[in-house]
């Protein structure tokens, strides 16, 4: 049996009963466990490991109701990690086909300084390009400083959806900033 099994399992069980501190500790340790598990399997792509760790954490958080105590925790977690890993490899193989190896030359120009007003205008434009389910959580939580729960109430989204919207939205923004000419 995996040495992490009893610890992770008991923390998750307390988390499922609503113990937020135990659940926080569970996710932190699960992240470390996933980083090692996925790192061994994706050693060719170290950049993807952390992204995938986050994807897996979100998936396990969203699907935590499918875990039942009669089942070894690691079997459940590894099945989800494998599913997400295969998903990543599949999208990668599709994307790589369209990939143009120009990144190195483009990077020379990408770092030039930008006026603050331009940056603000650009940020507004980038934010507007996000769908509402990602834009509203970022605007309310990250820019206006509301809590996740308040944002959920104000937008009518679920707490879970707000959290995922922030994560996905920030990721999409980072990607767009990187790709912007």
């Amino acid at each position, binding site marked *: 049996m995996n040495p992490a099994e009893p610890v992770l399992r008991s923390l998750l069980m307390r988390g499922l009963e*609503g113990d937020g501190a135990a659940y*926080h500790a569970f996710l932190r340790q699960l992240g470390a466990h996933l980083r090692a598990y996925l790192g061994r399997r994706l050693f060719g792509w170290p950049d993807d490991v952390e992204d995938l760790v986050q994807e897996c954490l979100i998936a396990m958080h969203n699907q935590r109701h499918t875990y039942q*105590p009669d089942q070894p925790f690691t079997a459940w977690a590894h099945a989800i990690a494998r599913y997400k890993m295969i*998903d990543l490899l599949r999208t990668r193989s599709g994307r790589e086909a369209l990939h143009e190896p120009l990144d190195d030359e483009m990077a020379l120009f990408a770092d030039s300084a930008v006026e603050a007003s331009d940056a603000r205008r650009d940020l507004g434009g980038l934010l507007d390009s996000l769908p509402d389910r990602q834009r509203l959580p970022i605007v309310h939580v990250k820019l206006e400083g509301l809590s*996740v729960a308040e944002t959920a109430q104000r937008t009518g989204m679920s*707490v879970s959806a707000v959290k995922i919207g922030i994560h996905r939205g920030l990721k999409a923004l980072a990607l767009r900033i990187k790709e912007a000419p």
Partner: protein
Amino acid sequence: MRTDDLVAMLATGIEPVRPHATRHRLARALLVGAPLSLLAMLVGFGLRHDLAQVVALPMFWVKLLFPISIAAASFLVVQRLARPGVRIGASWLGLAVPVACMGALAGLAWFDAPVEARLPLLLGATWRSCAASIALLALPMFVAALLALRGLAPTRPAVAGAMAGAWAGATGATVYALHCPELTAPFLAVWYVAGMALPALAGALLGPRLLRW
């Protein structure tokens, strides 16, 4: 976003999760889908008018228990497929055994009958419409089952879709059995099985598209 921030965000304001959430969710699909199928049958097809007499025949109960046993077995298999890391194990036998038994029963009836009586045993009066009617009555359950599965975590979407389809098909067949005038084993072994296989096939095709998460 740093992983630590993500973790902190995910862990704030969590609600307790009720135990056996998977089973409850799927059971709710049955509670919505099956009555809708029944209603569709009562409105669109109607109960068979000699129902009061046929309940005395053992074959009527065989005809009813056959799809019920398949529905129960696929309900269990779908529950397993909806949870990551749970193996199907031998639970698929719950579907295979009733079909095999009905096949054996059909073989006995077929070879027991004189040659000229065999084809009527197989075709009855309604063979043209039977499988399609079952698939049609399975539709509400099919939608309910796939919606329920979308909130769960099947790691093998094609298999999960197929089993959800079989579950819906068997529910549809159970409901249709209250209308259907046929009572021979060869008929059930071919047309009922075909009627249940249609939604299963549809589920296998739709699963990879609809059940991603």
